[in-house]
């Protein structure tokens, strides 16, 4: 999460440690921004509209909506999330007309997509030796959670 050219925090998936299937990297990072706001005595409503999320894989539908609620400025992601993606792959929650779901935002995709795909591939290879290896077409394949 980058607020006005300053890296405020980094988050990674905490699903297993919390046993909460919603603790994706984006939500973990968002909570860190919220506590950073508290420490800095800044209102989250004034911070998120100047904050951009950089994330290796397209946020899922849940995280895409969460970022809307937070009124994030923009999301930059690497590879697409064909299974759960909320920024264009499965749904376009970032830009759909949802007047009661925060504010729509811009998404920039494909930045260092191949590296993101390679990372996922090696992760899933380690996780399950029988797992099918994601195809690397157009840097756009994902298995499992983000």
């Amino acid at each position, binding site marked *: 999460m980058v607020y006005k050219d300053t890296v405020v925090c980094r988050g990674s998936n905490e699903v297993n440690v919390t046993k909460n*299937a919603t603790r994706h990297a984006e939500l973990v990072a968002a909570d860190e921004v919220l506590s950073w706001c508290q420490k800095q005595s800044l209102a*989250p409503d004034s911070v998120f509209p100047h904050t951009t999320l950089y994330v290796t894989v397209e946020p899922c539908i849940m995280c895409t909506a969460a970022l809307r609620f937070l009124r994030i400025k923009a999301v930059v992601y690497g590879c697409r999330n064909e299974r759960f993606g909320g920024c264009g792959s499965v749904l376009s929650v970032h830009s759909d007309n949802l007047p009661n779901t925060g504010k729509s935002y811009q998404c920039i995709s494909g930045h260092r997509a191949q590296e993101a795909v390679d990372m996922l591939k090696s992760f899933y290879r380690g996780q399950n030796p029988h797992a099918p290896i994601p195809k690397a077409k157009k840097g756009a394949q994902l298995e499992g959670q983000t």
Partner: protein
Amino acid sequence: KRCCTTTTTIPWHAIPVLADEFSNSATRLLEAYAAPILNQGATSRLVKLMASLFPLPKYRHLKRVRRKDGGLDILLCVISELQLAGWVGELKEEKWDGIKEHEQFREWKAKERKRAEDDGVEEGNDDKEDKVTEEQDVKAAALKLIVNKLSQSGVSTSELGPPSPVHIAETAPRTRHQFEEASLHWPTSFHEDQKLEKILSDEPFNPTEKADVEKHMLCAIEAARQGQRCGFEPSGAVMVDPASDTVIAVAHDCRTSQTSLLHASMVAVDLVAKSHGAGAYSCTKYPACKFLTSVTSNFGLQASHLTSALAITEDKSENLSAPYLCTGYDLYLTREPCVMCAMALVHSRIGRVFYGVPSADGALGSAYKIHVHGSLNHRFDVYRGILEAECQQLAAIET
């Protein structure tokens, strides 16, 4: 189980929130041609012949022969399945009038032309006329192709009457209603899904089930009220294991400027994680947010008492299997969840969701139908309308 015991409730009705394919208006019709069988002794030969002349592999639900007015009609083909490109071109060159080869075709053409003229007078619209002509061309070309193939195969006009246009259902009917609707046009086969018909019926639950559903929704409403007393929006959630009718967690909206994502469903999912010794949030300082301690698995309960979240001791034993802790559970929500919460329930593998009132941008029926989305890897049943009046009152207080 210290849940609410209010007895007088306003009558309510559970309404299943289904995928669009199950809706009453889902039947799409396509144009086809059928012809009367004049010599019924030839029926089985004609059926075999049509299967090879005009195979319909995409339409296995359609019956090939129907009984009508004491006679039999045979389905010849679905127009969109014919390779018509060359035929339409040929017809255009002949400018309609050059075709003399078949009496049936001439009769049909005269009728179509009259119909087009009548339509044209009413519409007086150039685009529309073009479209009518184009449709006519396709229909005419289809008829020409059919007649051509039939005569090449030696079908005589004494065994098969002139083809006429009919409508057929594009896909197999999923519900009895759709079956009845499709059958008005052309008979189809239908395999009734008993479970689905039960869901679609006026009363999907028996009295015991309905009483349980009501009991848990009352608990969610009470949680919403208690949350409201703590300054939150009145929105409640109750997670239940239906196998043992055990309440696993009770939650309410916990949104502050610092915790703006803690919608009731997100809190409920985290309280289930807490019941397994983990969890991420500390919003559980509110007394109405409770969870069952010592849940070992979704199928075996060790203890069964609700405790305030403050009492929990942290057990960070790592479990590397994916935490689909809500598998098989029912979630009761006073209002339809947003898209974030609905997707959180997909990630948690929720069993069923019952909610009271729809909400703007809601994702289980209003703006999306996340629970039946074709691309997502987990689907679940959703019912709305549970204690709708009481849930509506909660919402009204808020605004």
